[in-house]
């Protein structure tokens, strides 16, 4: 066993680690009210949004970073970050994408050109993509098809321009500006992101997808996503992220807000593959993200699925507030850490309404010198009669120098609610490995096979395109974990 499972010394391959040379436009380094005014002006924002940003900034200045995570965070110098970087657009051809950019997204395998997708498959396989490069959204595909159904899917900046009422109504309604340190920072400096509105009774005909990429050096990415599913509608939304390899830590502090009205159904999937740093733990993205959804009306349903393989540090707790009676939510997560990566991730399920249900399935995999924690909260409010939660958190350890931790909190104030939580920690047993190897499967493949089986419950929840990618990512991240 000892020979088979070695510490991860060999560098794993991060194939998204390239840098694209495009002309970039920056704002000066640092953070103060002037910078915020500058960002807001560059985006041509209305006054109320500037006020919102400044309000958040003033609150942020009063706040201190959270310290409770099981993480060793490098000190972040917030004055040493460029808060806004955008690929320069030639004024004379505003509709065309820079070929270098196009190449980047091609390398990432994102079908930005609609015709490519159209040529291949029937409408069922289509995915509408909103691609965000550093601070701006470069393109959104399939706008017309979606618009026919009344669906709004565009970049956040565009939504501010064209649908200010919707943005104003819902912005910060789930994650208030002063919610936490990083959410406040995001509210002050957020650059771009996706906006999505599904009108009453509309079933979104295709998966919606956002791709986020950090390209420029010394920058941070602060995107803001707002998804609104009106009564009886449904949508499946996917998010993917990558970044180049650099020796410095780059900050990614995003906010995602999801509003699910009566009988609506939202499925939110993430494959997070930010640059994790090298084998010695240098560099990598600090992924400090606030994601929260609210099931506002009765019968609303929100499902989170996440595959976390990247980032030097992950601090992320997608949460659901189950306010509507008989609303339900699920959280499926695979978090894989290797080398010196650290992840502190989990979920919060706040049951307020009657008969609300939630289910949490979290699978942690740690290898090398990494630290992987599940942290969660399940809360049953006084009105949550008949509410039910089931949580299962499993950890898998590969190698003897890593750590796997579970920190759940269960709070009940209702004598008619049931909460169940269980967690286990184990490793790949020698018996399992022996069984595979004696059938001629190489030990590395055997580990990948066993890990794949272990994570399958979550991976099978992902939309097709993502499931394939996630499976690949898991095996790439495991490369070198066995010798």
């Amino acid at each position: 066993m000892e020979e088979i499972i070695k510490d991860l010394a060999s560098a794993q391959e991060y194939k998204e680690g390239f840098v694209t040379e495009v002309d970039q436009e920056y704002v000066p380094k640092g953070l103060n009210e002037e910078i915020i005014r500058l960002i807001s002006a560059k985006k041509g924002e209305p006054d109320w949004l500037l006020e919102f940003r400044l309000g958040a900034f003033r609150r942020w200045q009063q706040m201190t970073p959270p310290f409770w995570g099981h993480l060793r965070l490098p000190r972040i110098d917030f004055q040493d970050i460029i808060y806004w970087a955008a690929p320069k657009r030639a004024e004379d051809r505003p509709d065309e994408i820079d070929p270098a950019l196009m190449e980047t997204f091609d390398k990432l395998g994102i079908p930005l050109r609609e015709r490519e997708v159209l040529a291949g498959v029937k409408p069922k396989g289509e995915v509408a993509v909103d691609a965000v490069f550093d601070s701006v959204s470069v393109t959104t595909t399939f706008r017309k098809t979606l618009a026919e159904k009344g669906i709004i899917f565009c970049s956040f900046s565009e939504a501010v321009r064209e649908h200010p009422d919707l943005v104003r109504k819902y912005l910060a309604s789930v994650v208030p500006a002063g919610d936490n340190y990083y959410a406040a920072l995001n509210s002050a400096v957020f650059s771009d992101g996706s906006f999505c509105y599904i009108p009453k009774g509309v079933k979104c005909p295709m998966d919606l997808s956002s791709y986020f990429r950090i390209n420029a050096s010394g920058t941070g990415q602060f995107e803001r996503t707002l998804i609104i599913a009106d009564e009886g509608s449904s949508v499946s939304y996917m998010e993917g992220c990558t970044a180049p390899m650099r020796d410095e830590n780059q900050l990614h502090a995003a906010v995602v807000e999801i509003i699910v009205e009566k009988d609506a159904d939202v499925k939110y999937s993430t494959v997070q593959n930010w640059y994790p740093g090298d084998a010695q733990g240098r560099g990598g993205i600090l992924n400090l993200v606030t994601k929260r959804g609210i099931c506002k009306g009765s019968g609303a349903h929100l499902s989170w699925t996440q595959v976390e393989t990247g980032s030097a540090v992950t601090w992320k707790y997608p949460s659901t507030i189950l306010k509507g009676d008989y609303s339900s939510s699920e959280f499926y997560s695979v978090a894989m850490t290797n080398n010196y990566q650290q992840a502190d991730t989990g979920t919060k399920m706040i049951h307020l309404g009657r008969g609300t249900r939630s289910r949490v399935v979290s699978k942690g995999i740690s290898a090398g010198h990494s630290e992987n924690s599940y942290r969660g909260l399940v809360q049953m409010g006084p009105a949550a009669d008949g509410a039910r939660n089931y949580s299962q958190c499993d950890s898998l350890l590969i190698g003897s120098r890593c750590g796997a931790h579970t920190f759940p909190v269960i709070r009940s104030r209702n004598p008619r609610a049931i909460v169940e939580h269980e967690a286990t920690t184990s490793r790949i047993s020698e018996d399992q490995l022996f069984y595979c190897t004696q059938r001629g499967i190489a030990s590395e493949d055997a580990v990948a096979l066993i890990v794949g089986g272990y994570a399958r419950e979550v991976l099978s929840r992902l939309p097709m395109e993502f499931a394939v990618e996630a499976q690949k990512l898991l095996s790439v991240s495991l490369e070198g974990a066995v010798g």
Partner: protein
Amino acid sequence: MDSRVYVIGRDSVPQYFRLEAGEALSLTLAVPPGVSCRYCLEVDLEGPGASLDLAGLYLCPGAEQVDLRILVRHSVGGCTSRQLFKGIVGGTASASFDGLIYVAPDAQKTEAFQENHALLLSDTARAESRPQLEIYADDVQCSHGATTGYLNPEELFYLRSRGIPEAEARHLQMQAFLAPVARRLGDALADEIHASLP
């Protein structure tokens, strides 16, 4: 095996145990009704083959505030720890259970298990569980489980349909729930606990 039973609020209860190689300790704690407490217990398993069998029950039917904090530290490999806690919370009481199992680097072949189950009896009662695992070794078997719920109405119906009065039926349910811990208390103490059920 060293077997000890303590009633919190009545006995003087040790807050720290250290188990050397091969030592085995069976420890049972009871928090009877009317006792509010914050009790911290720390157990170090410091020699290979040491084993801890810990059980506890807490009854809070009135306005009690009970806060149990348990830390079991596996510093060396080859040790076993088991924990089982059962609580009944009613009235305006609040109970919280915070249990951490820590497995040090290289404490291989550790087996550590922890369970906490709470029953809520009233609208104004509160229960909180924080079962935690902090593990730095890979060849281990560790698990924890926590549940919060109420007396099963179907069981109650079953008993009542056989002519058992409701209050008595509820007592039977609670006794059955507590049984795995109560049977370790000895007859006299178990009877006292059963008689004090709300």
